[in-house]
């Protein structure tokens, strides 16, 4: 039965040993890091922090040592990541490279691509963004229109990507684009590693409703790509992206986005909660504890070399419900008025995450898409 994929497991001792090292590092590097910035969670950008983390060997851990990685097990990486997320560390600069672009290059890239990108990724110096969604292609990713036409041993790319987190700060994008016509819905697409400084590329930040600019539009106007920029096999883009998304969805960031608010809430409530506060905080604690155990079970699947896609979708959907309910519950538990400026740490973090919350079930695959994936795994589709 598919539920059997969720087998409780403990973190191995060697991975667990990293925890106190990371906590100590964070205590030193983020001493006066304000709560409001911690609330940005993995969307917070800080190149200097990423480089410091890289110097400690904690970026690109899963990559081989020959590239500056640590050949680390999924559990070792998990311990480091969850400590960073729980503390609200500003990891977004290297986040995508570490989580998926690096592994993608390792898996599908040429030796030249690996040699060129992976060491820089591991140093926390090379930043990637993900080029998938387009204005006409969100949930229906297979309907993308950006097109790279062959021109000798080069490609000419035209089109547009949207909702690209961090594109403004990234050095490279791994983009899914059409490279040929195909009868099959999922055929005719390929992935390219695109240098975002190339002529013809325009990046325009998109302001979200909080005023933050994490998202971007990226326009390609006759951008000349090298044949060597293709990653993996031509026409295999969809299969490659599917593998990438399974990895993207399997981490602990899928339920830790509102940790900063849970922390300020507990601090605000104090040592003697009233009955409602105790009950709600207790319930949230039970859910957090269990989501973490579910996430560890997914990590075990990665460790065993199994496809974690179904289980990861369960954790992501349940996790985003949890992340979204934290602001809703928090605002019921104290009389704090949320503030987008001024006020206390709690009132600021409350307002910020309350506004960010709708995005938790949109990014990385919408709720409706995830539930379809889960249903398919149950044999209902």
């Amino acid at each position: 039965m598919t539920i059997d994929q969720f087998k409780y497991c403990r973190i191995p001792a060697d991975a667990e040993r990293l925890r106190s090292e990371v906590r100590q590092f964070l205590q030193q590097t983020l001493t006066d890091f304000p709560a409001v910035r911690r609330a940005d969670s993995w969307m917070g950008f800080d190149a200097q922090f990423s480089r410091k983390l890289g110097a400690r060997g904690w970026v690109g851990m899963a990559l081989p040592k020959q590239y500056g990685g640590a050949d680390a097990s999924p559990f070792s990486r998990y311990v480091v990541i969850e400590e960073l997320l729980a503390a609200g560390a500003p990891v977004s600069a290297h986040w995508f490279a570490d989580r998926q672009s690096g592994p993608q290059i390792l898996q599908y890239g040429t030796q030249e691509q690996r040699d060129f990108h992976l060491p820089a990724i591991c140093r926390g110096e090379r930043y990637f963004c993900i080029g998938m969604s387009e204005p006409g292609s969100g949930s229906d990713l297979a309907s993308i229109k950006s097109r790279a036409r062959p021109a000798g041993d080069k490609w000419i790319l035209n089109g547009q990507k949207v909702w690209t987190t961090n594109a403004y700060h990234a050095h490279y994008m791994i983009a899914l684009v059409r490279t040929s016509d195909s009868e099959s819905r999922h055929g005719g697409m390929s992935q390219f590693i695109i240098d975002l400084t190339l002529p013809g590329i325009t990046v325009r930040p998109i302001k979200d409703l909080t005023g933050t600019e994490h998202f971007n539009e990226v326009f390609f106007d006759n951008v000349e790509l090298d044949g060597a920029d293709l990653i993996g096999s031509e026409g295999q883009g969809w299969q490659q992206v599917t593998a990438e998304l399974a990895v993207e969805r399997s981490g602990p960031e899928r339920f830790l986005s509102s940790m900063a608010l849970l922390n300020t809430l507990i601090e605000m409530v104090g040592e003697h909660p009233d009955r409602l506060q105790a009950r709600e905080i207790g319930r949230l604690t039970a859910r957090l504890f269990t989501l973490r155990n579910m996430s560890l079970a997914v990590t075990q699947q990665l460790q065993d070399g199994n496809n974690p896609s179904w289980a990861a979708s369960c954790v992501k959907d349940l996790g985003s419900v949890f992340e979204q309910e934290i602001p809703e519950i928090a605002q019921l538990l104290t009389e704090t008025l949320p503030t987008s400026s001024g006020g206390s740490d709690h009132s600021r973090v409350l307002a910020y995450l309350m506004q960010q919350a709708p995005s938790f079930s949109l990014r990385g695959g919408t709720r409706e898409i995830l539930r379809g994936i889960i249903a398919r795994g149950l044999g209902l589709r």
Partner: protein
Amino acid sequence: MRDVFESTLEKLFTDHVPVETVLSAGREGWLPELWNIIEESGFALASAPEELGGAGASWDDLFSVLLLCGRFSLPLPLPESLLGNWVLGKCGIAALSAPMSVAAEAQLIWEDGAVSGTLQQVPWGRYVQQVVAIVADDAPRVVVLETAACSERVLSTNTAGEARDDLVFKQTIPTVSAPLSNILAADVLTQGGALVRAAQMAGALQEVMRLSSHYVNERVQFGKPIARFQVVQHQLAVLAEHVAAARVSAEAACVESTDNLALLPVMAAKICASEAAGIGASSGHAVHGAIGFTHEYSLHLLTRRLWSWRSEYGSATQWSDELGRAVCKTGASRYWPTITSGALSQ
């Protein structure tokens, strides 16, 4: 031991606990032949140490047993026997093989070697021969009481129609008693009850999931199986998430309860499984339509137990309250370390 327990018991339950048997237990209350089969299998003693007549099984080993009790709606106090014999074993008392139960809610007084007071809501109270209870005073004591010695019984049944009886004792000498092991809390039967019910609920939820997935693929309306409708798919997807949460949390509670019950995982399991129980019963009935609402169809054997078990040995509210107070007391800086350590800070 877990795997061998699972395959042995699954076969035994498949052979001896079909739906018809559970339905007849609803009519007759107690099935003595079925208890004999359980007793002969030795499973009721498994949680006691070997030197006291058991198999020395851990809660990790017993997780699959508890899941199966839930999956098959076993209408007998096997979970209660496992809990009772585990507590007795910790206190140096030999395992009991006769039909037995536990009394987590008890107001008992110990005086001159005799026990007086009421055991409340004892599962299968009127049918079992012995009940394990704790006299919770300055020197807590575990006692085994013969139900035949009670002076009064107040009978009730839970939502699933299973006996939950109050037994009143007046200066009854227990068959055996001993000081409660000092590693066990005075409310160990409540904590242990929460653990076993969480695992039973996880098993029942799994079966609700299986029945529901099967049904929606079979039932055709508007020219196609109702499984093809997105609304049905999404409802069962959400159910699957909660079934997985119940299962992992119950397994964590069992695996982490080694020498003693692991309180944080046990609380989390009871809270998450209880929440899942409501969703499971609701979704299961929703996708089954009217046929699932009948007495003849087996869904209610599971859902009525889910509705019962979520409230027993501490509801989600009660445990959430206790957990919330505990984490607020130690404060925000200890919060995340509590989660990663799996133990409440003292």
